[in-house]
């Protein structure tokens, strides 16, 4: 479990970092908090020829909150989100989800950019991005581009990023006052990767009905995704216990869960329904 040999660079500008990533025939890898990459190196599951350390890149560690929403610099750490009191109203769903990320030590080091670039199907941040229609900005040789979260995550540990591209920012759209949200996940132990998780929100209309429903899952399937049928079951309805059961059932029916040593597909499906139901009831409280 010693790391394989690799070269190391610690650039101070984004252009320099992009040039370094482009220089190694796709064998270079960016490293930020290292909480996923370093274990993969130790298991020799990843053997990049060059590690490009992003820690000295300026301006990527800020949380900006404005009328258009929340902008997270790629080097923002989980701890920064937990400590930012503004996010309690600016993005309560983000705040709730990040509380489930791993453990204290990992939250002190892991970054939002690293999490989305790593694209673990069970990770919270990709799930929040997809559920909230986030836009992910990446910088590469060809300049910067904005990628919709729904297009960004292509599969387990696979994204739309090109080898020379670095995630620079995650933009979560503005959070109106009428928005209600819930986040539920279940893992064998607190801090483990979720066997299933649900991030959802809806906006309350003047009649007390849910509109603009967004229901996203993590840990079921090869990437985070939204559940259109469950959202349809919620839109236009007042949230009651009976409705929550119905939406949960729709969610369970809609997912395509995988099986692993911790959970069967049938269990994951049922779990998703239960978590959806509970997240919705929590949102309505």
């Amino acid at each position: 479990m010693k790391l394989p040999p690799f070269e190391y660079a610690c650039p101070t500008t984004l252009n320099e970092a992009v040039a370094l990533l482009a220089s190694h025939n796709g064998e270079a890898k960016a490293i930020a908090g290292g909480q996923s990459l370093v274990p993969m190196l130790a298991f020799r599951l990843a053997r990049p020829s060059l590690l490009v350390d992003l820690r000295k890149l300026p301006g990527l560690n800020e949380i900006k909150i404005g009328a258009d929403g929340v902008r997270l610099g790629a080097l923002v750490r989980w701890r920064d989100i937990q400590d930012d009191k503004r996010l309690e109203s600016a993005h309560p769903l983000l705040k709730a989800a990040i509380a489930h990320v791993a453990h204290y030590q990992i939250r002190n080091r892991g970054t939002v950019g690293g999490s989305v670039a790593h694209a673990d199907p069970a990770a919270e941040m990709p799930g929040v991005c997809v559920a909230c229609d986030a836009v992910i900005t990446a910088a590469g040789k060809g300049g910067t581009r904005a990628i919709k979260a729904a297009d960004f995550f292509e599969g387990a540990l696979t994204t739309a990023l090109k080898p020379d591209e670095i995630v620079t920012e995650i933009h979560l759209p503005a959070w109106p006052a009428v928005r209600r949200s819930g986040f539920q996940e279940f893992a064998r132990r607190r801090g483990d990767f979720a066997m299933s998780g649900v991030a959802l929100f809806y906006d309350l209309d003047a009649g007390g009905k849910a509109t603009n429903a967004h229901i996203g899952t993590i840990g079921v399937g090869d990437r985070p995704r939204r559940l259109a049928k469950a959202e349809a079951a919620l839109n236009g309805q007042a949230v009651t216990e009976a409705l929550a059961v119905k939406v949960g059932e729709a969610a369970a029916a809609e997912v395509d869960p995988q099986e692993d040593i911790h959970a069967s597909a049938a269990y994951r499906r049922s779990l998703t329904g239960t978590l959806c139901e509970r997240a919705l009831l929590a949102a309505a409280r």
Partner: protein
Amino acid sequence: MKNTFIGQPMERREDLRFLRGRGEYVDDVALPGLLHAAILRSSVAHGKIKSIDTSAALKRPGVHTVITAADMPGGPPIVPMRLQPLPEFKPFEQPAIAHEKVRYVGEPIAVVLAATAAQAEDAFDAIEVEIEELPAVADWTVAQRNNSVLFDKQGTNRSMVFESRKGDADAAFASAPYVRKERLRTGRHYGLTMEPRGVMATWDAAKGMLTIYGAAKVPFFNRRILSAQIGLPVEQIEMIENDVGGGYGARGEFYPEDFLIPFAARHTGRPVKWIEDRRENLIAMNHAREEEAILEVACARDGTILAIRGEVHTDMGAYMRTNGAVGARNVSQFMAGPYRVPHVKIDSSLWMTNKTPVGTYRGPGRFEANFFLERMIDMIAEELRIDRIDMRRRNLITAKEQPYPIATVQPTNAVDEYDSGHYPETLERALQEIDWPRVSKLQGKLVDGKYHGIGVVCFIEGGAAGPKETARLEVNGDGTISLYLGTSSVGQGVETIFAQIAADALEVSIERIRHVHHGSTAYVSDGYGAYHSRSTVMGGSAVLDAANNFLAALREAGAKRLGCDANAVTLDEDKLTGGGKSVPLREFAGLTQEGVFLNKKHTYSYGSHVAHITVDPKLGRIEIIDYVVVQDVGRAINPLTVKGQMIGSLVQGLGGAVLEDLKYDENGQILTGSLADYLLPLASDFPNLRGVVLDKYPSPINPLGAKGAGEGGIIAAGGCMANAVANALSSLGVQPRQLPLSPAYIWELLQQAGRKAAE
């Protein structure tokens, strides 16, 4: 006696050192000229080795040497069994490095020595190993078909059947008014140590001395094994015990690496260090537990147990390792637990499979037996419509029946009996602690979406394996006294406990016992070590004998100096007094005496677990509301450390009850290759645990009255949690029959029960 340190809840002396980061583990020790070893392990579960080519690896940066079986003339030595060394097991013992065949993922194939551990590991992909794969034997049910056999000459995958017998079980079953038969299984666990293993060896050619660092648990045994393997007399081998980050039965046994690293040091003439990494630890250190029982219990209608009969099958992994037979042996002998069972007939089969070999893990065989029988008692009580606690009360062994004979195991002819105790007492105390009148009303109740359940089980813990232990006391130059022990520290707090015992025996302050040295072969003439909950009982009793001899020698030496009769001389803290005069103790620096304790009998502590849990039926999640362990340990030398043992072992047991399981696929590939998948309890997982230490019934077989006490928390955790789940979900007809009680398993049981109810 002037002192009463024994019985006091004293803080551990060794903890200041550990808490300040001053512990010294094997990886903290470095020597000039050190080479680092990395071990290339088989990625194939079962196959014939066709060729190994290390030539390219030798050209890699920093690489010094690569060692394989070819470097050992006459083939690699075998790692012999330490416990139950029966001739039948010989053909199944492990070569120190793979030779002709590989039989599990993780079996050592080559040892790379390099300037750094990373360089050694880097060279792995330059070693070409050609293996002709054979069909893997993935579990005992595959093993018993004998279609693919691990040891061709044997022609069978079964290495042994232990037969436990008491009375005439078949006759009792023939006339029994009620019989219940069940099939139950436990998961595959291991005694995961926070500090993985490590060995450093140095060969002094001039002195002909081989020195081994990182020894633990049984250094004297291991020295004898190494001596025979490497062809050096034991006097030319020294084993040094460093601080140890956890033992649990697994660490300190003789493993292939315990030969390979000393061999490498002698082969190269350079000091060699190997530190196991976590991935290796999961596939190289002994596995344990995975047992399946097909068990019958015969009862009277009132719940009186008449007889137990059945078979147990243990998935042994690929080789018979040093203590590998203990679990399968124990499960047969202790199936009846703390209960009065006149007739027992258990056949326990040991099946060789293509997995990491098994060894002991805290509560070997006892954890499994407890789960099997306690689960059955609850199922029987429910079917007979009697109270499950009354059924236990009816069958628990009482003080007036002691010593109580238990089943004899063949072919080792192991005759045994329980030593002392009134077993119902811990059950009543545990019920009192949990507030049974209050919590019993919650049984099976659905409150806020969660079912409440109470698990109640009783257990027996063995201890004090003989035959012998040694201790030595010596006067230091500053007038303090050092204590040297033949037993080892694997974290039990021996430095504190033995200082308490010695200070009481010598009637001096505890500070006078300045050092407690343990575990290295240089300290005493012979030693046996730390296993089978024996250190306090055996080592502590040896300290009493050493103290007697030491005081006698001091009186004799003092008499000469003081000019009085030896009987008139007393040790008075820092001086000897007699005849109206005194002489400082420091003037006797170097005076030393050994003592021994010989014993062939075992101690049996006992107790009860009661757990109050909830089950979320939608998630399958268990939460512990309250959990009480009550254990009578004969005599608690240090109630604080006993309680620490109880809680620590309970958390470990809860890991096995709800989280831990080493899983393999049908090709013998391990699926739980990291701690992301082999789930240990985390610090915040089980906060509500309590331990109550009793010492009402001292053991009659040793002068301290002490009994082994390190395993009581773990032994009954699986049975207790499974019974609590069954109790919580009793209205739904759920009966767990395997561990761990994972959320997915509990959910699946609920689905099955739902389907059954719908039919």
